[in-house]
């Protein structure tokens, strides 16, 4: 008689999810699913709103990567206007994005995942959190807090507000940068570089300890997608999309994000509010692909900044082809922080940065527009249609985490099969690993469902017909 095991909520992720594992009579795993349990309906609720509110409305999809949403949205609005923002606006948008990458990746690594990495997957749950890190590794905790703060401060210097700043606008940005703020940012760079260098060294040293996880955290062949610049280097804001296969061969390159619908489909299932995008030519669900930090490092030819390029080379030497295990997202995240600090340094040196011309004014010239950026968690696409008056008639959002939905589900199954078997006694560590694989993707469920939420964890054993046999509660 089959049973189902439920883990809910998945904690230390940005969002609200649940895992169910279906067990055969002998206790072996037959299926595992990652459910996203809330939904907010941004694609509908923006209907009837003026397009120029969209950057601020969609910012509210996520409190962690609001900048990515406002950038994607701003770019979609640029397309509706049919304008190129002034050079300075583009510099500023990219600079803002650097701030976000630093804070968001710092959050993911230090606040959410470092408890697993530093205290161990099997550590006591009560300690397995940032407070536990503050107590056990105060210097690392402090580094994490500092680094995230630097990211948030950069955002604040540029846009005036750390979270939901309403600063990206159609045609550019809403205010220029002051010299004073630029200098303040310049001053933060050395500290940021020092922290990330320390952390990279520490992390690389500890890789040894995670053999099991590396082997099972979604370690399987898939396609990878990410944005690259004209030279094929890593790019987060202004670039084109590239898809490679599990061998590392380029499947498609130079995809104009506006054409995304030719390549990506989104499937809906009735057991989750998170849709499952797939690579269209391969169909559903065979068109499984991954996005995010590791995927980006997999698809690009290099980073294009000196320190990050060194780290990139080291990262890519982990495997012959693309790095397969999603566990390495943690690693890639640190490299991207380094890349962002270097990029920021470059932009801050640009004399055009302080120009007052930061906004192209226009009326809508097109009734449709698509904007795409790399959010910290992966490719983010905003696609809008407006009516003659500029009111939204339709929107489609493909969020970073959604892209990884199929891979996360397969990853959960992989971990379940490896760590759960036979007996009904399921170890704490096994349960935590089920969540940790999800954590490795750093899913932003507020983005993906455009929602968040939490429920107590229940492990439910159910017959195949759904009848509840037994409930275990953990906490």
């Amino acid at each position, binding site marked *: 008689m089959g049973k189902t095991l439920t883990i809910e909520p998945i904690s230390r992720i940005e969002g609200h999810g649940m895992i169910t594992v279906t067990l055969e009579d002998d206790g072996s795993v037959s299926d595992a699913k990652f459910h996203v349990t809330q939904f907010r309906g941004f694609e509908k609720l923006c209907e009837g709103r003026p397009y*120029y509110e969209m950057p601020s409305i969609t910012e509210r999809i996520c409190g962690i990567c609001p900048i990515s949403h406002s950038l994607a949205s701003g770019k979609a609005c640029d397309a509706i206007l049919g304008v190129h923002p002034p050079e300075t606006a583009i510099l500023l948008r990219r600079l803002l994005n650097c701030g976000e990458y630093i804070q968001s990746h710092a959050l993911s690594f230090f606040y959410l995942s470092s408890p697993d990495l530093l205290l161990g997957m099997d550590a006591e749950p009560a300690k397995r959190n940032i407070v536990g890190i503050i107590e056990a590794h105060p210097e690392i905790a402090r580094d994490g807090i500092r680094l995230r703060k630097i990211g948030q401060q950069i955002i604040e210097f540029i846009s005036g507000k750390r979270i939901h700043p309403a600063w990206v606008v159609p045609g550019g940005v*809403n205010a220029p940068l002051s010299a004073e703020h630029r200098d303040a940012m310049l001053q933060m760079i050395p500290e940021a570089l020092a922290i990330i260098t320390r952390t990279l060294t520490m992390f690389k040293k500890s890789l040894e300890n995670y053999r099991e996880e590396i082997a099972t955290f979604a370690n399987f062949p898939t396609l990878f997608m990410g944005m690259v610049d004209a030279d094929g280097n890593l790019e987060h804001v202004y670039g084109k999309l590239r898809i490679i296969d599990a061998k590392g061969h380029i499947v498609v390159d130079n995809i104009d994000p506006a054409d995304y619908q030719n390549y990506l489909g989104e499937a809906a299932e009735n057991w989750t509010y998170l849709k499952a995008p797939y690579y269209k030519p391969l169909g559903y669900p065979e068109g499984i692909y991954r996005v995010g930090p590791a995927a980006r490092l997999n698809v690009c030819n290099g980073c294009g900044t000196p320190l990050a390029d060194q780290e990139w080379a080291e990262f890519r030497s982990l495997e012959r082809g693309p790095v397969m295990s999603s566990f390495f997202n943690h690693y890639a995240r640190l490299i991207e922080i380094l890349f962002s600090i270097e990029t920021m340094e470059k932009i801050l040196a640009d004399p055009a940065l302080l120009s007052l011309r930061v906004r192209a004014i226009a009326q809508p010239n097109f009734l449709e527009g698509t904007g795409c950026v790399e959010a910290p968690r992966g490719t983010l696409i905003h696609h809008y249609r407006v009516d003659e008056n500029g009111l939204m008639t339709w929107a489609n959002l493909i969020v970073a985490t959604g892209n990884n939905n199929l891979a996360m589900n397969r990853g959960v199954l992989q971990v379940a099969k490896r760590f759960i078997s036979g007996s009904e006694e399921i170890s704490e560590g096994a349960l935590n690993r089920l969540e940790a694989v999800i954590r490795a993707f750093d899913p932003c469920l507020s983005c993906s469902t455009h929602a968040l939420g939490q429920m107590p964890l229940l492990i439910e054993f159910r017959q195949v017909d759904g009848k509840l046999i037994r409930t275990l509660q953990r906490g």
Partner: protein
Amino acid sequence: MSHHPKGKLRTDLNPSRLLTFKIDDRDVSAREDESILEVARQNGIAIPTLCHLDGLSERGACRLCIVEVRGVAKLLPSCVTFPRQDMEVITNSERVVNYRKKILELLFTERNHVCSVCVSNGHCELQNLSVELGVTHVRYNYLYPEHAVDASHSRFSVDHNRCVLCLRCVRVCDEIEGAHTWDIMGRGITSKVITDLNQPWGTAETCTGCGKCVQVCPTGALSEKGKSVAEMIKRRQFLPYLQMMRGRQEESWQK
């Protein structure tokens, strides 16, 4: 067209007569035809208002400017109440302050105000009043009515979700611009401001496109198109100026 009682036919008010009375225990003096609100403001005493705007006729409708007058059971709207000799006015008793808060909260429930994504965020009179009055939440249930944005005008848009029915737009259009493009349809909770025959603003033949309505609107209901969130800062310096200049022109025509 609002029939303002301060009109010339008000026979019981004598503009030349000066009187003294008390506002919040302070002795003040005023002309008989100055409203309590005007006198209070001249004396640096703030009374919250929403439908009142210097340069437009009074409606006495938002009820936020209510004050107590010693010896009078009813609360009186200070914008349309005139002082009498030795009157004692209290503008900030707990009673009136509580009522003001509740009225403001009712206004928040009436339409769909989402401050965070509003063009007027940070520059909104409704929002400012909530700060001024210490409203940190709305105790009544939100009504969530269905309202749309009309963006058919080439330069402006009206978002009925943010309208508080102060009718400043109606008044400025009628009294200052003289077009009377705006009015209010329906009644009660279903009231809504309209242009011409409740048609898309862009098709309203009477609209001169002057934009005065946009500038006097206290919230983000009326805004300039293309202004993003928090960017709509209203400019109203023209209003007292125009009111004065229109008066002057009238004189010169009569010559």
